[in-house]
């Protein structure tokens, strides 16, 4: 999985690494059992301080999204549905927040907004099933 880090965005680098890995794990792009790149290798690759990567990894571990196998490294955890649910909610929260805010300001009716969201949802979900 390719990470995209912007060192001058004002968002702490550890947070950028954390968010992108979290997204990767929840979306299944990083499969359960998959090993994470070592702290040293990822730091060298991203051109950042190894302590930064190490901090992001510890927080992922705390989230229960990865697990440490002593002496080997970190692996994507076999996620319990509850953990996955929580992480997924957190990811979607921000996107829905923005959409809802704009809809309100533009005086869109609640039913209309929900219908529009449903339309898009179906647009993508039908593609996935096909």
């Amino acid at each position: 999985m390719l990470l995209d880090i912007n060192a001058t965005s004002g968002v702490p680098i550890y947070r950028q690494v954390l968010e992108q890995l979290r997204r990767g794990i929840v979306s299944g792009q990083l499969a359960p059992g998959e090993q994470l790149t070592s702290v040293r290798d990822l730091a060298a690759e991203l051109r950042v301080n190894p302590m930064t990567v190490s901090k992001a990894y510890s927080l992922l571990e705390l989230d229960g999204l990865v697990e440490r196998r002593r002496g080997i490294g970190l692996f994507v955890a076999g996620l319990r549905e509850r953990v996955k649910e929580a992480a997924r909610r957190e990811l979607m929260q921000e996107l829905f927040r923005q959409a809802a805010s704009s809809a309100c300001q533009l005086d869109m009716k609640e039913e209309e907004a929900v219908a529009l969201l449903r339309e898009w949802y179906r647009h993508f979900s039908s593609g996935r099933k096909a």
Partner: protein
Amino acid sequence: MSTPLKKPRPVIEIRDLVKCFRGEAALSGVSVSIPRGSIVGLLGANGAGKTTLLRHMIGHALPDSGTCLTLGCRAEALTATELARIGMVHQEEQLVEWMTVRQCIAYVRVHYPTWNDALADALRKKFELEPGKRIAALSTGQRQRLMILLAVAFEPELLILDEPAAALDPIARADFLDMLLDMIQTRTRTIIISSHILSDVEKIIDRTLILDRGHVAYNGSFEDLQEAFCKVRLKRLDRPLPEASPFADTLSWKGDANSASGMVALPPEKQIAAVESRLGCSIERTGLSLDELYRCVLDRREEMADEKAE
């Protein structure tokens, strides 16, 4: 990787350091400790005390009162053994003018048992320093690159850099920062770098130490600083927004009919949501650059000093 149970001793421990020059305080009771393996950005205006503080760390300046321990040793009593573990690039450069680049490198090399010839050679080539050229004939930028080479080629545990990139052009500065990044990848090192070109150091530091007229204005992790303040933008399409900031802890604020923005102490999610529903607007939050954060810290100090005076 296992975490050690006992916290390793800080590389630098400064307690209540006071230093006056001709009756004027350059440092007024500075207490700072720097953990091993951190990369510290030392920031402050001219005359804030940055160079004086760095000079104390290697015993080049003696405190009027207070203490400075470097690598566990009183800085004024550092011996050759400890000094051989510390690299320093400072503003008062002292190169022997009649020597050639090659001679100068050979001259410094003998003092360091850990000197890495391959690294010195690679840096000399990268920095485009001709071995046969006399020091006296080097440009300011070339002299600075040579100073950097001499300070890092023995792979010091502690590297102290006082405005190391000031005389370098943007490409050389990028190369230099790249070199620092390489250095920290392979082994635990502590780097203290003072700079007024904040956009440079922002990419590599993990701690920030801000001095303001001889006092510590901020000392902590860069991430915490990044999460202490933010910029908020309020947008409302259908109705004008109130003129004043809706956030209690606001550093600066400006706005027109449909949008407003300002720098604020990072409000909790709940508060943002509350403001959003109260004003019927959407709020976008973005992080600040080191430059902006630096100004936030100093503005905040200014405010607090004013409040005290009242």
